[in-house]
């Protein structure tokens, strides 16, 4: 790729002519295709040169760890390396399945994710619809701008802020509870409250940002539809339900599939910064479990096995949701 022909590059064909030819029906000649593409490669040597670092990055930082997953089937010793460590087959997976602690973590992960999906998924849609009904342009813009703000703060920061707000001795929540004559609750140390806090603050953080995509879809709806509906006597909420919402359906479908695929990602950053040993019982999820067992307790092979298990289940969930949506809807993402 790198050799240059005397430092002078011959004029190279660009993509344009091919685009034109693509409009004509191209007959593929499978046998000649490989040779042809091989002969094309030198022409693109400078492009390959530009992509060299990027490709190397993906091979090294994304694909080498995939090979590293072999650790899950080995009794990994750092000194022996991944290849040198002895094979032990599915021992770690048997350990996972025989470990009641793991089921608790798995259940937590599913419960938190489902809560997030059920409560959190409709919120940006609702928010977009309500925002869309605001009449005063500047007010609308301001609300919108403020609503994205939490998305740009890290969970370390937000964790610090919420620890302060929910503090039983100084926090605003304690103050409000006191106004109503109730005793303070230590929200972040109480296992059942902590989970609610995690779900609510998670939704709070992303509502505004996630609504952007719906607002974009709303702004592309043909205004004449609304005018026609108005002439026919449709009220505003009827317009919202009969015109706006159906127009959002494709966007909703795609995001729902992606959401299902990510169901095992119950929000590591957030939980890691909000949980503590008192709330492990309801907040420990697969990712935090992998972190603690892998990097703190140095049970490398076992936690790799847990991570692999999570990845595979997540992949299956996404593929099967896509399959179901395709059957029902006619088209999924793929």
């Amino acid at each position: 790729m790198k050799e240059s022909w005397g430092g002078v590059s011959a004029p190279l064909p660009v993509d344009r002519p091919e685009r034109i030819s693509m409009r004509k029906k191209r007959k593929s000649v499978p046998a000649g295709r490989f040779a042809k593409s091989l002969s094309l490669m030198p022409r693109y040597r400078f492009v390959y040169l530009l992509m060299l670092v990027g490709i190397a990055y993906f091979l090294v930082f994304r694909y080498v760890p995939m090979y590293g997953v072999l650790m899950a089937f080995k009794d990994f010793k750092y000194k022996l390396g991944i290849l040198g460590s002895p094979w032990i087959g599915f021992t770690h997976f048997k350990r996972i399945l025989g470990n009641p602690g793991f089921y608790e973590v798995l259940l937590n992960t599913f419960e938190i994710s489902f809560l997030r999906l059920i409560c959190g998924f409709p919120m940006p849609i609702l928010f977009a619809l309500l925002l869309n009904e605001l009449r005063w342009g500047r007010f609308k813009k301001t609300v919108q701008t403020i609503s994205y703000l939490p998305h740009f703060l890290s969970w370390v920061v937000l964790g610090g802020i919420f620890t302060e707000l929910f503090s039983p001795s100084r926090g605003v929540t304690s103050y409000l509870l006191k106004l109503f004559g109730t005793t303070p609750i230590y929200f972040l140390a109480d296992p059942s409250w902590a989970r609610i806090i995690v779900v609510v603050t998670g939704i709070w953080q992303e509502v505004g940002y996630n609504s952007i995509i719906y607002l974009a879809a709303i702004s592309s709806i043909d205004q004449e539809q609304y005018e026609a509906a108005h002439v026919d006597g449709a009220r505003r909420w009827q317009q919202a339900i009969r015109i706006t919402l159906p127009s959002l359906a494709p966007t909703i479908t795609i995001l729902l599939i992606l959401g299902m695929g990510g169901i095992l990602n119950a929000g590591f950053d957030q939980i890691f910064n909000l949980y503590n040993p008192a709330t492990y019982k309801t907040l420990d999820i697969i990712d935090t479990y992998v972190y603690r067992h892998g990097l703190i307790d140095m049970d490398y092979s076992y936690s790799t096995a847990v991570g692999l298990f999570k990845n595979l289940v997540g992949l299956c969930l996404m593929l099967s949701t896509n399959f179901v949506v395709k059957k029902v809807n006619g088209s999924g993402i793929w």
Partner: protein
Amino acid sequence: MTIVGRRSPGDKIFDTCNAILMVLFCITILYPVWHVAVVSFSTAEKANELGLKILPNPASMASYRAIFKTSTLGIAYGNTILRTIIGTGLTVFFKMCMAYGLSKKKMPLRNGITTMLLVTMFFSGGLIPTYFLVRNLRIYDTFWALVIPGMLDAYTIFIARNFVMSLPDSLEESAIIDGANEVRVFFQIILPLCIPIVAVLSLWGVVANWNAWFDALVYTRKRDLLTLQLLLRQMLIESQSSVFLENEVGGGRDYAINRETYNAATIMVTIGPIILAYPFAQRFFIKGIMVGSLKG
């Protein structure tokens, strides 16, 4: 936007309720930040009082003075700024290189490379293998561990590629006929035309690097490599704050400050730049998500 004709009384009630709801929502976002700001300017005694924090009374800069006296904050700030500049620069540059390459429809291996990137969106090796990779590459506990492992991701490369593909081919074509190679074309023609997407990628990069803490937590140990977020985390969660206070502030204990005001001041210095830049930068983010969603 759907206003056609007059508003009925029901409409008016709805509009009012809707506006109130929106204002309340904004308060839930603005108040927490304001609360921490007030605590950071409060004296220890006032910070510990129960109640809404509307204004610091009396206002005190003691916490800020205390944290700025420490050398740790300087190190953390320096590292955060450095990783933000270098990390963002590398991310944007190499993402654009990949985007440009993948925009070449006729290039052999294009589909292969696209698939290679696509797979990484759905499957990854996971935490532990990546950790060992970083160790084996000898970048563990170096500055590069903060910058390189998260440098590229398939999703944003695809967004950038879509942008590059939407550019007209004619300019590139004429440059190539004039004898320029693709590297020159990339730098002199493509990149200048890509300023909108470069701006979006840069802002994403800046926010991601500024807010990153997990890589610093896992891949570094040295105090010299401490970043703001990690420092804050140590103070908040690992409750090293008191130790830190004594070690770093040293000397006579200052009763005007306590852990809470100290932590609040650190939160404020950490989010300060984001809050200040936010009103100017936020429209680029919106642009970015539009680019991503409409074409991706």
